[in-house]
């Protein structure tokens, strides 16, 4: 057990290294360009050179990366080249926004897709067909198109929700709810469509297993079979779907953040990457990888909890 945890940590560390290095080197523009962008065009050539040296952009890529990594390990992600804001403080305001979207969407996805998936698998018929239809539609419309549609319908045509912006829950809980409703729905559609149909498959799969027939023959009521035995066994594959889904959401959130003007990490990544604000752009990258690793870990852990075979192995 200890060994496998250790192995896993090692593996995660290597993944973090590879991903951060890959993004770091992709974003590594030329130093003078970045310095010029920071200082503006009225700055003299000498000032630009000084800035380059000051930011350490004249050093070899590996040295810069090593430097960044060394600091990152101690929790210091550096400061923005442009605004001087520390990356951690920028993340502190932006991560909650993205996490709100992802977590809310995931919770709703789990609830809705489990209910829909089970209902479709068990009852079949029109419910099943309806689910499959919705699943296809939901999977087909990209989240940003759904988002545009929702803004049009519920913020511009009928003004129920704010079209854009994010309200922190400590300012106004109601405002927060209103501000995240449409973004969450736009993410939710695709997410539920996918998860529910996968879950339906998993439930059907378990339903076709021998022990379910035996349980029925034992006289155990149908609902007990579904909620105690089938769900538990469909949980494993379901979790895999959900963890993949979460990872997809973290990426998809960027589009929704764009349409709804939400200050999340996707926006931060987009803007700072294009600015050449390397430290700032690395922030979302690090957060994303951490989310990926954590989600994978939770997925595996929950799977282990659900699957006794995995536990004893």
């Amino acid at each position, binding site marked *: 057990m200890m060994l496998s945890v250790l192995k896993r940590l090692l593996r995660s560390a290597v993944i973090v290294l590879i991903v951060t290095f890959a993004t770091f080197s992709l974003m590594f523009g030329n130093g003078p360009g970045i310095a010029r*962008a*920071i200082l503006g065009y009225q700055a003299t050539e000498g000032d630009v050179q000084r800035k380059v040296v000051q930011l350490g952009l004249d050093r070899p890529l590996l040295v810069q990366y090593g430097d960044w990594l060394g600091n990152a390990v101690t929790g210091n992600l550096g400061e923005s080249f442009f605004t001087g804001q520390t990356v951690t403080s920028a993340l502190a305001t932006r991560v909650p926004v993205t996490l709100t979207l992802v977590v809310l969407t995931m919770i709703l996805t789990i609830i809705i897709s489990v209910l829909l998936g089970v209902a479709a698998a068990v009852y079949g018929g029109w419910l099943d067909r309806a689910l499959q239809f919705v699943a296809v539609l939901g999977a087909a419309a990209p989240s940003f198109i759904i988002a545009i549609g929702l803004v049009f319908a519920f913020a511009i045509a009928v003004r129920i929700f704010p079209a854009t*912006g994010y309200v922190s829950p400590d300012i106004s809980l109601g405002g927060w709810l209103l501000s995240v409703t449409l973004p969450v729905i736009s993410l939710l559609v695709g997410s539920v469509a996918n998860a529910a149909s996968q879950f339906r498959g998993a439930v059907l799969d378990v339903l076709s297993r021998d022990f379910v027939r035996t349980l029925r023959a034992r006289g155990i009521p149908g609902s007990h079979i579904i909620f105690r035995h089938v769900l538990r066994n469909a949980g494993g594959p379901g979790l895999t779907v959900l963890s993949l889904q979460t990872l997809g959401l973290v990426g998809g959130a960027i589009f929704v953040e764009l349409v709804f003007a939400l200050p999340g990490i996707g926006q931060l990544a987009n803007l700072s990457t294009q600015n050449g604000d390397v430290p700032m752009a690395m922030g979302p990258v690090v957060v994303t990888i951490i989310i990926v690793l954590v989600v994978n870990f939770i997925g595996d852990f929950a799977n282990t909890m659900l699957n006794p075979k995995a536990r004893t192995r």
Partner: protein
Amino acid sequence: MRRTRRRALVALAAPLALSLAALTGCTSGGQAGGNTGGNAKDTLTLGLTADIQGWDPGVQPTYQGWGADAVWDSLLRCGPTGEPSASLADKWEFSQDQRTATLHIREGVKFSDGTPVDSAAVKANAEYYATAGGASSRWAGITVETPDAQTVKISWPAANPLLALRMCESKIATPASIAEGKFEAPIGSGPYTLDTSATTGGSVYTFVKNDSFWDSASFPYKKVVLKVLESETASINALKTQQINGSLITTATYEEAKASGLALETLKANTTRLLITDHLGEKIPALGSVDVRRAMNMVFDKDAIAEKLYLGRATPAYQIFREGSNAYIADMKDPYPFNVDEAKSLMAKAGFSDGFTLQIPTMQGQGHEKLMPYISQQLALINIKVEEVPLSGPNAISELLSGKFPVPLWQLGNYGESLQDISDYTLKDGIWNVSHQADAKIDELWNTILTGTEAERKQAQQDVNRYITDQAWFVPMAYPEHFYATTAGVEVSQVSDFSGLHPLLRDFK
């Protein structure tokens, strides 16, 4: 990425700014939080289309510089056409040779940390500007003398007719913060102070009134909140729901804003133009021919551009200067009326009827997607094949201004002080004169501006205008309008920004 351009170009100081921000469609990341702060006179909430770029007084764009204006005082204030008035300096004097500004600092003014604002503080700031980047080239080589605690003399190595503008751009921060080189929170002597507890970098900045400010009466609001709303639709919605009280908007949302009953201040602060900087034909020989440059002027239907492309919210432009500025020639007729046939014969006359290939750089969010199709199409009529070169990434600005593309297309500022235009667009070192080619006639006229009498200077400016119009250094197309929208109860008394881009903080009543 729009933010990049915006920020970087904005950092050039006031000039080009508006076009950059205002035409942007939608990028995002802004907090449209609930307006919880009581009645409107208590709190003024403004939308920022770009985030505040930190608190380094040396690197501060004046564009939407409400935050900077709130926390720092400037040495002087400039009016809409650049005329100076008192601010931190209550008395001032510019030397006859236009090299030295002598300022008397108002007595008894203190920074918000309690330290006095004196000549030493101003000296520290001025010297910092010269090396801090930002506008360092504009302050390069200055010397500062402090004869006494309240008097400061700033001298430029060469004559500088834009001394007043430099004084107005200055942001006086505490010498301690400058010495430290770290600017996490601004400390100044401005009308407001930053309330860091109610500030979230990147989204909301809250300022509370500094009652000891010398001109406190000009700033009626107890609190100013700046919200970063990079998407224009976000801004419009925030305005409609009173989450903010004012924001810049563009033609894209003009109708929506009008229909929502927002008050709209029209701003006409720039000119859409092609800048033909290779007058000598070094890179593209054809451009060395004045006939070719004139032909390029003749293929655009300026009325149609204003009427159709800008949806009527623009007027055709025949010159690059702002109406009412010194260089503006009020009665100028269209020197190059729309006439493709004549353009063709001019090309033939110049020996370039087969045309040439022209690379025009474009960037996201500059409205190029609106202009480029028409421009490419019209230039193609005289066999000029336009290749659009999209620029991106941190090097975009460097590339744009590097001279690699001798004919940029841009909407650029036309200032209340036309000297700034002349300096930026026509002088050899002008940043937008990207080919940086010297011209004897311009040098001669500039010399007059530096040394001549008041009347001679004005005349020289008009002569510059005539000369560059005749030589067809530009292809001016339109003066597009932009708008500042405010909600009921917030009044914009006037737009006193000399670059005409937006109201200043003191304009909100």
